[in-house]
C-alpha cells in the first residue's frame, strides 16, 4: 500500500502532558503479564509483545489494524500501576509546586490581593524567556511571603519541603508518598496554574505522578533473532518486563494484605524500575544492567547525546552515492576531471533506464555483474522492486530485463560527480567534475584546482557525490562544472591558475630557452597540442614563440609581469614580457580573465591545462633541481656580506655606547630607552636587508632564484636567510627581551643589550646557527605557530556567523536582494547591481566595450 501524501502547513506546536485518561484512550491493549511468548513462540495476549501493539514477525497480523509486518506502525498500550510513582522527568516541577502551594488547600502561597499584580509580570517572563524562568520568579515571589510559615488563604501551617534526590520528598521530617503527592497536586486550582505558565487543559500537575504507564508499540522495540534461533529482546522490552513483573507482585501483595514493609519495598522497587525506564543515567541511582553487566539503553539515552536520535539520525544524516578519501595530485588529468579509485567506482552507481536503443549496451554491464569493473550492482523493476545482481540471480535477471527496467551501472569515465572539500566557504568549494576511473585508493585532482578548494596533499580528504537523475546531472554540468567557476565572484579574477613547476617552466621557457624545431614540436605535442600550424617553421625557435603556439590567433593582451615589465601579446604572439605568476597564477593578473571573456569557459580551462602541462614538460626536458651549492656565495660576495654585517653591528654598538654615556637623544614622544630599542631594531633590520641585497646582486643565477623570481615558490628574503644572514628575530614588534631576569638566556650577562643577546642571528641557515641563535629562532617560530593555530578557528567562527546570517539571501528577478520571507535587504544587489564576476577587478571597462562594439583596435 502506497502512502497518500497530504501537504499541510504547521501552524503551531503545543506540548502537553499525557493524562491517564488520554493514555488509556490511546491504548490498544492493557498489559497484565510479564510473559512475552507462549510455548509455541507466539506472543501472549496481554503480554509486552501483544499482537494488538503491532507485529515484528513475518506472517503475523496486527490485531488492531489488520496489517502485516512493515505495514503496521504499531500501537500504544498501557499498564495500570498498583501504586502511583513519580515521573522522574517532572521531579523538578513537582518540587516547585510543593514549595509554592499550600499543603492543605492547594492554593499558591501568595495573598489573594497580590496575585493579580504578579500574574502579569509572570506571564510576560514566561512568554519572553522560558517556563523555567517563570518558575524561578514564582519561587522568588513565594519566598517573600513564606516568612510567616502560614498559608495566606487558609492559614494552615506550612512545613519546609525537602527533596532527597533523585525522587523522595519530605515535608519537615515526614516522607511524602506518591499517593500524598498526587492528592496535594490535585488540589492545585486551575487559576493558580496560570501563574506557573501552565494551561490546565494541557497540563495538570497530578499527571506528573503516574498512575498508568504508557507502553510503546512493539515496532519501536523490535527483538532480534540470533543465528541460534534464540530471541534477543530490545532493552526497552527488558525494562518494561521488569516494571510489569514488579507491578504484578505489588498487586498480589496488596490484595493478599501483606505487611506494610513488604509493600513499601516493592513500591520503591517499582519506582526504581519506572524511573530507569525513562532515564537510566540518573546520578544517584545505580543504572539498570543486563545480566552481563551491560547498561540498559532506555528512553532518554535513545534521544539524547551523540549516538541519540537527534544528533545521530536527524542532524547527522548521511547521503547515499557519496564517497570520501584522501586526495593526491595528478597534473596529467584535466582541470575538470577527478580521479576515482576503481574500488569506489564499483560501489558508486548511476541508474540508467533500458530503452530500445541501449538495451544491448546495458545488458553487457549486467552480465559482468557487480565484481568485474564496468558492471552493474542492481536492477530496478518497473514496479519499483530492486534486485541485487549476483551469480545465482544472474540468469533470471538477464532473462527478464526489458525496456522500462532500470540498471544501476558502475561509474564510468565521463560521468558527472560533485567534488567537495570542507569547510565549504564559497561556491567554488563544491564543483562538478568529470569522473576518471583510475587505479589506486585516492581521489586525484589537478593541482590547479587546489586553490578554490583550499586543498593540499598533506592528508586532506575530500567528498564525492554522484547525482542520480538526468536533471541533477545536467544541472551540475551546466552550473557547477569547474570551467564555469573559473572566475571568482569576489573580485572577477581567475581562481585557478598554474602553480609551482608549471609557473617555473613557463617562466624559463619564455625567458631564456632557445629550442630546435623538433624539440619544440616534441614539447608541444607532449602537452596535448596537435595543431602545430601556429608554430613558425624555423630552425631555431625562441621560447616565446613556442608558448605563443598555444594562444589563439586573434588574442591581444597588454599587461605586466611580476617584475613590472610590459607583457605584450599581439595577435596571439607573445612579443615581450615573461609568463610568471602575475599572468598564470591564481587570483592575479587579467590574462586568464581576458581569455575567459573572449573564448569562453571550455577553451580557457583547456588552455590552462595545456599551459600547465607545457611548463612541466619544459622542466622535465631541461631539468630543474636545487642543491646546497645553490646557496653558496662567491668569495667576494661573502666578504661583502660579512663586511656589511660587521658595519651594522658596529653601528649598533655605537648606539649602545652613546646610550651608556647618556648622550643618546630621545626621539620626540619617546623615552631614551624606547629610542634605544627603536634605533637598534632599525639598524639591525637594515643589516639584514642590506646584506640580503648585496648577496642577491652578486649571486649566480640558480634554481632557488628562478623559483622566487617567477613567483612559483619562495621569495628573495627566504634565499637571503638561507645564504647570507637570518637576521633579527622579533616578538610583538620588539627585539626578544624576556626569558630570565633582565636577560634572555643564562648564557648572556645580565642587562646585556647587545644584538646577539637580544635575538640577532648573524649566521645564515646554511652556515648554521649557534645554540643561542637557534633558540631565538625557535621562539619566533613557536610564536608564529601559536598565532595561526589560535587565529584560524576564531576567524572561521566569525565567517560562519556571517555566512549563516546571510545564507538564504537571494537576488530576485527585479534585482532586489531579499531574505527567505521576501523582505528586501538591498534594492539593488551591492547597491550598484554589478555581477562582480563579470567585471575586471571590480569595475567595468566601458572603453573596452565601446571599442569592441565599434570594432576599433588600440
Amino acid at each position, binding site marked *: 500500500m502506497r502512502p497518500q501524501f497530504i501537504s499541510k502547513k504547521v501552524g503551531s506546536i503545543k506540548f502537553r502532558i499525557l493524562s491517564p485518561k488520554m493514555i488509556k484512550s490511546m491504548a490498544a491493549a492493557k498489559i497484565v503479564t510479564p510473559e512475552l511468548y507462549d510455548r509455541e513462540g507466539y506472543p501472549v495476549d496481554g503480554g509486552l509483545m501483544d499482537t494488538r501493539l503491532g507485529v515484528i514477525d513475518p506472517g503475523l497480523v496486527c490485531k488492531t489494524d489488520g496489517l502485516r509486518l512493515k505495514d503496521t506502525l504499531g500501537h500504544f498500550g498501557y499498564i495500570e500501576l498498583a501504586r502511583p510513582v513519580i515521573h522522574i522527568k517532572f521531579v523538578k516541577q513537582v518540587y516547585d509546586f510543593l514549595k509554592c502551594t499550600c499543603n492543605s488547600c492547594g492554593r499558591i502561597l501568595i495573598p489573594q490581593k497580590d496575585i493579580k499584580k504578579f500574574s502579569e509580570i509572570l506571564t510576560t517572563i514566561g512568554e519572553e524567556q522560558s517556563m523555567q524562568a517563570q518558575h524561578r520568579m514564582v519561587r522568588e515571589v513565594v519566598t517573600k511571603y513564606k516568612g510567616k510559615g502560614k498559608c495566606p488563604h487558609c492559614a494552615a501551617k506550612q512545613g519546609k519541603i525537602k527533596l532527597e534526590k533523585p525522587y523522595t520528598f519530605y515535608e519537615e521530617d515526614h516522607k511524602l508518598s506518591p499517593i500524598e503527592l498526587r492528592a496535594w497536586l490535585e488540589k492545585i486550582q486551575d487559576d493558580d496554574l496560570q501563574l506557573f505558565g501552565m494551561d490546565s487543559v494541557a497540563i495538570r500537575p497530578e499527571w506528573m505522578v503516574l498512575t498508568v504507564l504508557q507502553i510503546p508499540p512493539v515496532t519501536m522495540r523490535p527483538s532480534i533473532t540470533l543465528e541460534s534461533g534464540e530471541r534477543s529482546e530490545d532493552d526497552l522490552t527488558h525494562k518494561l518486563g521488569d516494571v510489569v513483573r514488579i507491578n504484578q507482585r505489588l498487586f498480589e501483595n496488596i490484595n493478599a494484605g501483606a505487611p506494610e514493609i513488604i509493600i513499601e519495598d516493592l513500591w520503591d522497587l517499582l519506582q526504581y524500575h519506572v524511573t530507569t525506564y525513562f532515564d537510566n543515567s540518573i546520578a544517584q541511582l545505580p543504572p539498570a544492567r543486563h545480566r552481563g553487566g551491560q547498561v540498559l539503553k532506555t528512553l532518554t539515552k535513545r534521544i539524547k547525546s551523540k549516538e541519540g536520535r537527534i544528533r545521530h539520525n536527524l542532524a547527522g544524516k548521511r547521503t547515499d552515492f557519496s564517497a570520501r578519501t584522501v586526495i593526491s595530485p595528478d597534473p596529467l588529468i584535466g582541470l575538470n576531471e577527478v580521479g576515482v579509485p576503481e574500488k569506489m567506482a564499483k560501489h558508486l552507481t548511476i541508474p540508467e533506464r533500458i530503452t530500445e536503443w541501449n538495451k544491448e549496451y546495458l545488458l553487457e554491464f549486467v552480465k559482468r555483474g557487480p565484481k568485474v569493473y564496468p558492471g552493474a550492482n542492481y536492477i530496478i523493476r518497473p514496479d519499483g522492486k530492486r534486485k541485487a545482481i549476483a551469480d545465482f540471480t544472474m540468469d533470471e535477471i538477464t532473462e527478464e530485463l526489458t525496456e522500462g527496467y532500470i540498471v544501476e551501472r558502475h561509474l564510468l569515465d565521463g560521468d558527472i560527480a560533485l567534488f567537495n572539500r570542507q569547510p565549504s566557504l564559497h561556491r567554488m568549494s563544491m564543483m562538478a567534475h568529470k569522473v576518471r576511473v583510475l587505479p589506486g585508493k585516492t581521489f586525484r585532482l589537478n593541482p590547479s584546482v587546489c586553490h578554490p578548494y583550499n586543498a593540499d596533499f598533506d592528508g586532506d580528504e575530500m567528498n564525492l557525490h554522484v547525482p542520480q537523475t538526468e536533471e541533477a546531472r545536467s544541472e551540475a554540468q551546466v552550473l557547477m562544472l569547474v570551467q564555469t567557476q573559473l572566475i571568482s565572484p569576489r573580485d572577477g579574477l581567475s581562481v585557478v591558475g598554474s602553480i609551482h613547476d608549471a609557473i617555473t617552466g613557463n617562466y624559463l621557457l619564455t625567458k631564456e630557452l632557445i629550442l630546435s624545431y623538433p624539440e619544440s614540436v616534441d614539447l608541444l605535442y607532449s602537452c596535448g597540442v596537435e595543431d602545430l600550424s601556429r608554430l613558425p617553421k624555423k630552425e631555431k625557435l625562441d621560447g616565446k614563440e613556442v608558448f605563443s603556439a598555444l594562444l589563439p590567433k586573434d588574442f591581444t593582451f597588454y599587461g605586466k609581469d611580476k617584475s613590472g615589465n610590459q607583457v605584450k601579446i599581439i595577435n596571439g604572439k607573445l612579443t615581450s614580457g615573461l609568463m610568471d605568476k602575475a599572468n598564470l597564477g591564481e587570483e592575479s593578473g587579467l590574462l586568464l580573465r581576458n581569455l575567459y571573456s573572449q573564448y569562453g569557459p571550455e577553451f580557457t580551462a583547456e588552455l590552462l591545462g595545456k599551459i600547465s602541462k607545457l611548463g612541466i614538460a619544459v622542466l622535465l626536458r631541461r631539468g630543474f633541481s636545487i642543491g646546497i651549492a645553490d646557496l653558496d656565495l662567491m668569495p667576494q660576495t661573502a666578504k661583502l656580506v660579512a663586511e656589511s654585517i660587521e658595519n651594522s653591528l658596529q653601528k649598533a654598538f655605537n648606539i649602545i655606547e652613546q646610550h651608556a654615556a647618556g648622550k643618546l637623544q630621545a626621539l620626540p614622544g619617546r623615552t631614551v630607552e624606547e629610542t634605544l630599542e627603536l634605533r637598534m631594531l632599525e639598524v639591525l633590520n637594515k643589516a639584514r636587508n642590506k646584506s640580503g641585497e648585496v648577496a642577491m646582486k652578486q649571486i649566480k643565477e640558480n634554481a632557488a632564484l628562478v623559483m622566487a623570481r617567477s613567483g612559483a615558490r619562495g621569495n628573495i628574503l627566504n634565499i637571503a636567510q638561507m645564504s647570507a644572514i637570518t637576521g633579527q628575530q622579533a616578538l610583538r614588534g620588539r627585539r626578544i627581551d624576556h626569558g630570565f631576569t633582565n636577560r634572555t638566556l643564562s648564557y648572556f650577562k645580565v642587562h646585556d643589550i647587545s644584538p646577539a643577546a637580544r635575538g640577532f642571528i648573524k649566521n645564515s641557515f646554511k652556515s648554521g646557527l649557534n645554540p643561542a641563535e637557534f633558540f631565538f629562532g625557535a621562539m619566533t617560530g613557536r610564536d608564529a605557530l601559536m598565532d595561526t593555530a589560535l587565529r584560524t578557528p576564531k576567524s572561521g567562527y566569525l565567517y560562519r556567523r556571517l555566512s549563516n546570517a546571510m545564507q538564504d539571501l537571494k537576488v530576485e528577478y527585479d534585482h532586489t536582494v531579499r531574505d527567505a520571507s521576501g*523582505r*528586501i535587504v538591498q*534594492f*539593488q544587489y551591492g*547597491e*550598484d547591481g554589478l555581477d562582480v564576476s563579470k567585471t575586471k577587478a571590480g569595475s567595468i571597462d566601458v572603453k573596452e566595450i565601446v571599442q569592441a562594439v565599434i570594432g576599433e583596435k588600440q
Partner: protein
Amino acid sequence: MSIKKHNLVPKHTLLTDKQKEKLLADLHVTIKELPKIRLSDSAIQPLEAKSNDIIKISRESRSAGNSVYYRIVIE
C-alpha cells in the same frame, strides 16, 4: 546639535502619500517587504514622520556613487 549636519549621516526625506503609492507600485512590493526604520531614530526626528510613512535615504556609496534606500517607519 543636529546629527543631520554630520557628513556621515545620509540624507533622509519623507515621501508624500502620492510618492509612496507610486513607489510601492513601481517596486511591486508591499509595505511589509520594505526594510524598517524606528520612529525614534534620530535621523528622522526633524521630519515628523508617522508610522507607515516611507523614508527615502540617499547615501553616497563607495562602490556605486549615489544609492537610494527606502525604509518604512515602524512603532
